[in-house]
């Protein structure tokens, strides 16, 4: 179970392989990679030429670790890796990696999606897009709140 908040890019192949490396009881690795889209992240206006991710150092790591711990309490997991970048990113750049290893695919898929949903509403990151009209802060999406809420039954 490991969490990183960093400016640097990450290696999806190496991170995915590390989740099952040296163990023979992992049957399933589910991963998610989030990328910067050029088109209307805020739902309106022009193309995005770059984006800056601000975060709250210290709280970011704590919140991600708490989310991972909660996933570990809900499903049988053998490894979890979360990497979230901050700083300036360009369209097509990777933002976030979540990888989950488990004996069974159901647990791996559920935990991976759960971590992403919670991360979206609980981890203190904020996106500011650069557009031809200047910088604009991305609004939080109601869809993200609903996505997180469906895990609380």
């Amino acid at each position: 179970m490991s969490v990183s908040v960093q400016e640097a890019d990450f290696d999806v192949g190496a991170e995915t392989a590390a989740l099952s490396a040296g163990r023979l009881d992992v049957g399933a690795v589910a991963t998610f990679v989030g990328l910067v889209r050029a088109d209307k992240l805020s739902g309106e206006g022009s193309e995005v030429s770059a984006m800056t991710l601000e975060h709250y150092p210290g709280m970011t790591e704590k919140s991600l670790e708490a989310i991972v711990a909660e996933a570990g309490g809900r499903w049988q997991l053998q490894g979890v890796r979360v990497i979230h970048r901050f700083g300036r990113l360009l369209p097509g750049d990777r933002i976030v990696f979540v990888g989950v290893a488990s004996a069974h695919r159901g647990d791996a898929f559920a935990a991976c999606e759960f971590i992403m949903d919670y991360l979206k509403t609980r981890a203190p990151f904020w996106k500011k897009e650069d557009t031809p009209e200047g910088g604009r802060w991305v609004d939080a999406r109601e869809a993200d709140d609903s996505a997180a809420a469906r895990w609380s039954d």
Partner: protein
Amino acid sequence: MSVKVLYFASLRETLGYSHETLTLPESVSTIGALRGHLARRGGAWEALGEGRNVRAAINQEMVGPESALADRDEIAFFPPVTGG
């Protein structure tokens, strides 16, 4: 009691402050009361007023408006998060 207050993202830009250290009157003992206290500075600070979509953390944990403050707490105010 004395607390450190941090502001992030659009709120930081609106207020023109990233952080400050405050000595609070006794009447200000919860997150909600602190928000009201700051909003009463007027001008840009009304961004912290009631009804504004502001989230808060105490010592790096997300909390609600009823949460109690303690001396030397690290408080943060910020807009809803948009990572991932």
